[in-house]
């Protein structure tokens, strides 16, 4: 039998697992990566098809993805099947758990927004008194942000904003369209900052093409797809983890892989589920608690730029995208909520027909008249980490491989609701000041989880009694166990978390390698 003990066993191949394997393999450490999903060839496994040739005319198979609003009939193959991979939540407070089980994980389909956190997040308690600080500060992570941004070819514009630290970007110096300039000007008048989007660029910006090939090229990485990890195994005598038991997804054959170090990078809730099912790393009782994400108010405002109607606008009137970083509760204190929100906004496109209270010929005339007149903005708000929002094992539900599933409980509170209302009113005001006509404004959040930014269930901290991991993403309880995905977050801010997950995984891997070199692991 070819079984061997690897230096490091990495569970998951997305942002955190991919970065861990990339960093460690380049240092000469022998890694084994297990992923629950099949491999993917980005060129061969995608093709062009006409929507009318799809079985459901683009609607998708009804009921197949009740909690994945991002799924459509074109991309249905990418999302984890909810029947094979069930979970539960209170029907009155549904949680939308969105998963990808393919090599590359969610980096195959992420929005690529790449923002740094700042000490307004790392030291949030110092700033407003709520919750806990991270055990690290911005300066600890900055060198790793510096390395991740070029790797993911992040483009953006330097602004010098303390709440949104600059980085090493491909400079985006593109001019603003006239409509964007009007909106940005209206924001500036009110002291609200704006910037260009900061996004990873390239045809594909994924672990699949940016991390895994380089790791494989070292000869130090072995990837096993279709390996559904059932539990992390441990030795009670030594108090150390020894490897994992996993199931071959197709044959359901049970196997064990051994390693000196195990790294969970399976995504926030999957890693948490794995630890809970393994009954390890929970001496604090915090495992699974403090689940949070970013709340989204999609299409907070939908407006039109009046001069663009009937194709009469100037050629540079429409187009472009921008971002409002957090601007509340920095130097001042809001009465109704703590922390703050960010906004993605964009000019161009035709408003959805639903916004027009019309039908028949009148609707078609309105759509023709409003072609490429749209302006819309989506709010992404900070969610306060609360102990009561948590994930636990549901004793009554197992997945297709007999592995116990999660029950997820998460609710937003008045802090988030008040923030959403403030965002709606602010954006409405900015749109009117810019001369736009607002078709609809609202503050209805999508259900928790839908932002796909779940965080916090294996939080890091200095105190083993109140946290699961130390500041190196290392289990307080078992020193050869690391959790490198978003579950380690203590707070999340309103910034998309992937860049921080990448930086944390790289930092944890550097530490891991040093500890292994010095014989501590």
């Amino acid at each position, binding site marked *: 039998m070819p079984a061997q003990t690897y230096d490091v066993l990495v569970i998951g191949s997305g942002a955190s697992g991919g970065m861990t394997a990339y960093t460690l393999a380049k240092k000469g450490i022998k890694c084994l990566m297990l992923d629950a*999903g*099949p491999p*993917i060839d980005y060129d061969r*496994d*995608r*093709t*062009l*098809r*006409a*929507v*009318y*040739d*799809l079985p*459901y*005319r*683009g*609607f998708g*198979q*009804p*009921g197949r993805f*009740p909690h994945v609003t991002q799924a459509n009939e*074109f*991309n*249905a*193959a*990418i999302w984890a099947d909810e029947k094979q991979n069930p979970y539960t939540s209170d029907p009155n407070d549904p949680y939308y758990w969105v998963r990808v089980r*393919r090599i590359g994980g969610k980096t195959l389909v992420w929005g690529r927004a790449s923002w740094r956190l700042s000490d307004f997040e790392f030291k949030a308690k110092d700033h407003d008194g709520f919750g806990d600080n991270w055990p690290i500060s911005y300066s600890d992570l900055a060198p790793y942000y510096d390395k991740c941004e070029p790797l993911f070819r992040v483009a953006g514009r330097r602004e010098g904003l303390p709440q949104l630290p600059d980085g090493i970007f491909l400079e985006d110096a593109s001019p603003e369209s006239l409509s964007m300039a009007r909106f940005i000007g209206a924001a500036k008048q009110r002291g609200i900052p704006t910037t260009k989007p900061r996004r990873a660029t390239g045809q594909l910006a994924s672990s699949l093409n940016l991390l895994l090939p380089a790791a494989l090229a070292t000869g130090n990485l072995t990837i096993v797809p279709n390996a559904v990890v059932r539990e992390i195994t441990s030795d009670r005598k030594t108090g150390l983890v020894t490897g994992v038991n996993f199931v071959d997804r197709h044959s359901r054959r049970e196997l064990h892989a051994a390693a000196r170090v195990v790294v969970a990078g399976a995504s926030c809730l999957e890693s948490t589920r794995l630890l809970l099912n393994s009954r390890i790393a929970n001496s604090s009782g915090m495992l699974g608690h403090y689940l949070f994400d970013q709340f989204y108010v999609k*299409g907070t405002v939908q407006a039109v730029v009046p001069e663009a109607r009937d194709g009469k606008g100037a050629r540079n009137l429409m187009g472009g995208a921008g971002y409002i970083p957090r601007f509340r509760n920095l130097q001042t204190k809001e009465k109704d909520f703590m922390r703050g929100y960010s906004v993605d906004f964009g000019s161009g496109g035709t408003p959805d*027909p*639903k*916004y*027009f*209270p*019309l*039908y*028949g*010929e009148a*609707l*078609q005339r309105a759509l023709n008249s409003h072609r490429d007149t749209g302006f819309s903005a989506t709010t992404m708000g900070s969610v306060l980490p609360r102990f009561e929002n948590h994930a636990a094992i549901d004793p009554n539900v197992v997945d297709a491989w007999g592995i116990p599933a999660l029950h997820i409980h998460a609710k937003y509170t008045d802090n988030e609701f008040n923030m959403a209302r403030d965002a709606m009113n602010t954006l409405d005001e900015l749109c009117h000041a810019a001369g736009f006509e607002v078709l*609809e404004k*609202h503050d*209805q959040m999508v259900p928790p989880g839908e932002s796909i930014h779940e965080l916090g269930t294996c939080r890091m901290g200095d105190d083993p009694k109140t946290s699961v991991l130390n500041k190196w993403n290392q289990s307080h309880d078992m020193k050869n166990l690391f959790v490198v995905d978003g579950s380690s977050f203590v707070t999340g801010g309103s910034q998309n978390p992937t860049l921080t997950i990448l930086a944390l995984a790289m930092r944890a891997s550097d530490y891991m390698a040093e500890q292994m070199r010095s014989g501590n692991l």
Partner: protein
Amino acid sequence: MRRRRFVQSLPLLSSVPVVLAQQNAPQPEVPLAMASPDSVAKPSPHFFSEPQLSALRRLSDIIVPAIAGTPGALEAGAPEFLDFLIGNSPPATRALYRSGLDALNTRSIAKYGKAFTGLDGAQAETMLAPLRDPWTWKDPPDAYAVFLRNAKSDILTATVNSREWIAVVSQRNRGASGIGTYWIPAE
């Protein structure tokens, strides 16, 4: 006898390498022309009752009528497609549609003494008043209004994603080809 058998076997033996060579030779790849089911057959609606389907057809014609050479919902087969789609949908969606279409008919009969299909244009307009209310993110409290809102969206989508609609509209707008990147299922 033995010689005869040997001679009889000669052509067969000599042909074996030829056959194998033919089998191994690279064959020119000729794409096989295939037709879609919709291009050769008509759908057989079976989910909605006849009065429900009639109401859906009338509603579809009002929501997306054929305009100046552009096919409408009826030409796109939207009602028949929705019969299939809704019939395969979760129970709540099926109930919403069935009760909504029934309500269209019962309200029409109560007000005009005939089913929705039989109403003239002005009469039908009165049945669709909720669609002229401004759209909001929160669903309206009235299930009939929710049905009309969903039906408007579904009829539009079923129409603009149809082969018939795209064949015409893509002639004047290359962006309306309906072509997208499709992820092939792993297994």
